């Protein structure tokens, strides 16, 4: 068994619109605050793992602002799991014994971005008009909108609807999913770093602009700017640091990354279930904890329709029991397994590469007892989950330090 790894320092910026900050500003803000939170400097870091998806920036550009020490930089991209992948890269470097401290950063500038997914349905533009097959499907024109949808809201809408079909749901799907969104927007009112902190009634959620049934606008993750960063440290190195640093350190009990194993239909509609189930199972085994031990969960509610299926995928409920689990109130902040007390991606926002570290920050904040008004009292164990479509799944289980 390789050495345990701890989160020594961690930070997320305010998510939202930051028109005056560029990618390096945002990354620097999170990275420098994470270093300060851990009581260390760039000079202590043995590795940097950097995630940025849309901006095509590099960790070296951030180093040029906050500290060039010659350490290796790993620039990673893994769709919406980019931040978790950066964190896991730094963790692996420590577990491999290559260094005893590392910095993971995820940053994104997305405010004002529209739908994310495939391009439009235009097909090839040429002189004259001739149908001509191209690509792996031999398509004569764009297939988005002609053979289903390739956009995220509709894709994840189908993920949720498929779950209801498979489990013989007899209620009204639209209202069910809207109520999940109401929960997360209510939770966001206690999170000052969330992009949107306004409570919404069921009528407001259902009456808002429909994007892809059953997901209205507030049921979709918010495109916004933001960054998050974490300093990770080996157990041996942590023992040489101050009592206060040891007390605030959070143990990474499990760090798992999976891709989607082949399943029937997985290339027809992305299968976000199997790889999450596999990751969760591996994480519980690695950490030696069970789903019942979790005091809070931050899961990837990129759309309200996604949150439901992950209750089941993360084994927070009996197989097929996600609707009952939600209806019982279990996932509200005063329930048995609070889910997305940060407000989730639907209200906190989803600056893609920052998300996979920001949800770790949320969990750490509670485990350290520093979450203020939204503190889950006595939280000792938490789980953070992200999905990147295509697909990648990151699951981390975190535990309060024994020190």
């Amino acid at each position, binding site marked *: 068994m390789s050495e345990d790894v701890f989160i020594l320092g961690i930070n997320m910026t305010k998510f939202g619109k930051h028109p005056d900050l560029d990618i390096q500003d945002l990354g620097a803000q999170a990275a420098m605050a994470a270093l300060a939170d851990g009581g260390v400097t760039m000079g202590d870091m043995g590795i940097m793992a950097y995630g940025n998806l849309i901006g095509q920036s590099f960790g070296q550009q951030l180093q040029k602002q906050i500290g060039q020490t010659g350490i290796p930089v790993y620039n990673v991209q893994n769709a919406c799991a980019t931040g978790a992948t950066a964190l896991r890269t730094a963790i692996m470097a420590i577990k491999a014994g290559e260094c005893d401290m590392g910095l993971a950063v995820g940053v994104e500038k997305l405010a004002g971005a529209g*739908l994310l*997914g*495939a*391009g*439009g*349905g*235009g097909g090839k533009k040429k002189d*004259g*008009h*001739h*149908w001509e*097959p191209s690509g*792996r*499907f*031999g*398509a*004569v*024109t*764009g*297939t*988005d*909108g*002609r*053979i*289903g*949808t390739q*956009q995220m*809201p*509709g*894709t994840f*809408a*189908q*993920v949720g*609807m*498929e779950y*209801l*079909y*498979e489990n013989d*749901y007899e209620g009204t*799907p*639209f209202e069910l999913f809207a109520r999940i969104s109401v929960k997360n927007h209510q939770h966001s009112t206690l999170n000052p770093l969330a992009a949107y902190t306004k409570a919404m009634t069921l009528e407001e959620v259902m009456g808002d*602009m*429909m*994007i*892809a*049934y*059953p*997901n209205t606008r507030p049921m979709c993750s918010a495109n916004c700017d933001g960054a998050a960063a974490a300093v990770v440290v080996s157990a041996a190195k942590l023992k040489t640091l101050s009592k206060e640093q040891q007390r605030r350190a959070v143990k990474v009990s499990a760090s798992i990354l999976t891709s989607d194993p*082949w399943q*029937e*239909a997985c*290339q*027809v*509609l992305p299968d976000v279930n199997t790889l999450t189930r596999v990751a969760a199972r591996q994480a519980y085994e690695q950490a030696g904890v069970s789903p019942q031990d979790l005091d809070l969960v931050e899961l990837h509610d990129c759309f309200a329709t996604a949150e439901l299926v992950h209750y089941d995928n993360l084994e927070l409920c009996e197989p097929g029991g996600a609707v009952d689990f939600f209806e019982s109130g279990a996932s509200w902040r005063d329930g048995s397994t609070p889910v997305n007390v940060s407000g989730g991606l639907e209200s906190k926002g989803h600056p893609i590469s920052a998300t996979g570290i920001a949800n770790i920050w949320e969990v750490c904040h509670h485990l350290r007892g520093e979450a203020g008004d939204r503190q889950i009292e006595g939280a000792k164990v938490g789980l953070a989950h992200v999905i990147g479509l295509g697909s990648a799944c990151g699951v981390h289980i975190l535990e309060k330090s024994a020190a």
Partner: protein
Amino acid sequence: MSTKTQIPLVDYLRLGDRPHLVATECTSCGARFFDRRNACASCFGTEFTEAEIATDGILKSFTIVTFAAPGVPVPFVAGVVDCDGTSVRANVINTEPDDQHVKLGMKVRLATTSLGTDDDGVEAVGFGFEPAEGANA
């Protein structure tokens, strides 16, 4: 002047008197795909055969897209159809795009749709699934 008068939207749509979809099926494990393959994603095999897909199916998931990329007409119903064990991505067509007319588990069948004619007079033909008779009272 081209002698061909119709062309399918995608290679896996077969036109003619009896329009249907075909899958590329792995000869060793039976996994089915709709795109050009390098190898089988399930068992890594490299030999494939063509399998005809049932034209009747069950709608096992759907969304009604009302906000799409530029150039994509809305609203439209996108869904996944279980065609006798093989899942197919398609639009649900020839019905009102709302949750009163489109239901999980409804019976549907393959239908073709014209995408227009090019400068050579060739008509592109797409496909979707329409409500089957007697379904969804």
